[in-house]
């Protein structure tokens, strides 16, 4: 199992094994150094990126989306050593800066609680103090709802961890050569791999004290409620399975008199009813546990939601269909026989319709105003 790093080459994301990423980083760093005196340095480096991107493309297909260390080595070998072409001419005019799509992340550096205000400030390019004051001021007119919104954002907005994500937050372009640029600015000795990795590991600051406690507490609440929903779902499933069992092997003679209704129709109705109740329960359980575990929601989650929602609508349709068929058959049976038979009881509604024999009054069963009578079969 290898850790994977995503890089942006020529505007497209590529996933490299981390060791491969280190190789590529080193190669581009050396290229930058060697071309330090070339007036077209930036353009050549952009050309290198394009070439690397094309070579990466050759190692990818539908079932493979990570470029291995070996493949990166091969790409670098193909590229060959960087040979500056000696030249003393003047540089051409540089291209203007480009804008790139932004993404919202929480920024943990200098955060007071969860880095949400920090991330919003970076996203909208305003002072973080203004965002914080706005948050606090909005607590009063929203009667505290703002606190909930903040907590929700803290749980849902992903944390910017890599330099790429931090650049994305500000809408800057991020390329492998930027890593090198920044690395060069920050650390004198990038070639010392251990040192570099250590610095990278330390550069992710933790949540502040209050934030940590708060986050743990909220997550615990989400997990507990999620487990509660999970248990409810389990009970419901047990009820459904035992219901089917009963239908198949039990001695419920609900249908035997209504011989026109098959056991399958009832089983289908019961199953549809189960899905109508269970799908939302399952969805809520998964969401709560996911939030509790601190996992962000992505496109995958949206696809799941759509699938579950369509299944739910289908279940409602099926249930309605079976309910209409069953109730139609039951009322047809009652109007010809005058009574229904459930298990060992014969049940009759409205004594004028009851056939001869001794009938005892019963508590209202389904319809509160109807008079029910029963006798043993």
């Amino acid at each position, binding site marked *: 199992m290898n850790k994977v790093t995503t890089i942006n080459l020529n505007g497209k994301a590529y996933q490299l094994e981390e060791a491969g990423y280190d190789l590529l980083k080193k190669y581009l760093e050396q290229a930058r150094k060697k071309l330090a005196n*070339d007036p077209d340095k930036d353009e050549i480096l952009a*050309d*290198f990126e394009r*070439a690397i991107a094309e070579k990466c493309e050759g190692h990818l297909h539908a079932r493979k989306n990570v470029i291995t260390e070996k493949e990166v080595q091969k790409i670098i070998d193909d*590229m060959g*050593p*960087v040979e*500056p*072409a000696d030249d003393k001419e003047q540089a051409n005019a540089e291209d203007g800066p480009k804008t790139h799509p932004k993404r919202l992340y929480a920024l943990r550096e200098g955060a007071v609680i969860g880095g949400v205000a920090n991330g919003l400030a970076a996203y909208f390019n305003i002072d973080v103090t203004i965002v914080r004051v706005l948050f606090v001021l909005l607590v009063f007119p929203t009667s505290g709802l703002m606190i909930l919104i903040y907590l929700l954002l803290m749980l849902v907005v992903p944390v910017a961890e890599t330099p790429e994500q931090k650049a994305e937050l500000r809408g800057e372009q991020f390329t492998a050569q930027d890593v090198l640029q920044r690395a060069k600015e920050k650390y004198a000795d990038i070639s010392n791999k251990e040192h570099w990795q250590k610095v990278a590991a330390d550069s992710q600051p933790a949540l502040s004290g209050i934030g940590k406690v708060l986050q743990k507490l909220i997550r615990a609440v989400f997990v507990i409620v999620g487990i509660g929903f999970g248990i409810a779902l389990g009970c419901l499933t047990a009820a459904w399975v035992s219901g089917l069992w009963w239908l198949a092997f039990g001695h419920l003679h609900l249908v035997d008199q209504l011989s026109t209704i098959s056991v399958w129709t009832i089983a289908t109705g019961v199953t549809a009813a189960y899905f109508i109740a269970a799908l939302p329960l399952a969805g809520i359980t998964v969401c709560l546990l996911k939030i509790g575990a601190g996992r962000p929601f992505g496109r995958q989650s949206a696809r799941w939601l759509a699938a579950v929602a369509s299944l739910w609508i289908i279940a409602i349709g099926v249930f309605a269909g079976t309910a209409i068929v069953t109730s139609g058959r039951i009322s047809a049976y009652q109007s010809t026989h005058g009574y229904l038979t459930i298990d060992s009881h014969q049940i009759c509604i409205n004594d004028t319709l009851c056939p001869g024999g001794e009938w005892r009054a019963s508590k209202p069963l389904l319809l509160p105003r109807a008079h029910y009578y029963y006798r043993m079969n």
Partner: protein
Amino acid sequence: MSNISDKFGPLRKGMLELAVLKTVSAGKAYAADILKKLEQTEFATGEGTLYPLLSRLRREQLLEYDWVESEAGPPRKYYHLTETGKKQLVELEAYWHALSETMEKLGA
């Protein structure tokens, strides 16, 4: 054999410019095309060498490129010779012929 090829290393390096100009003179070429053509020859090289060279030749106004959209992937730079480039190629080739003629005559 490798020893001999090593001895000609600096010469090949110096001649790469001529080789690239000649390759491009055959028609519009994209960097990977140039590399592929050279791959079969003694002038086989990689992007690491070719790109800085192409960039210098462009600064010297011997080459120019156009961005061409490609069906697969991002647009590519297609290089072609400028008028200066064509003249330069003729001169370089003449010089190269002179060199090899001299070499032939030295043994005589």
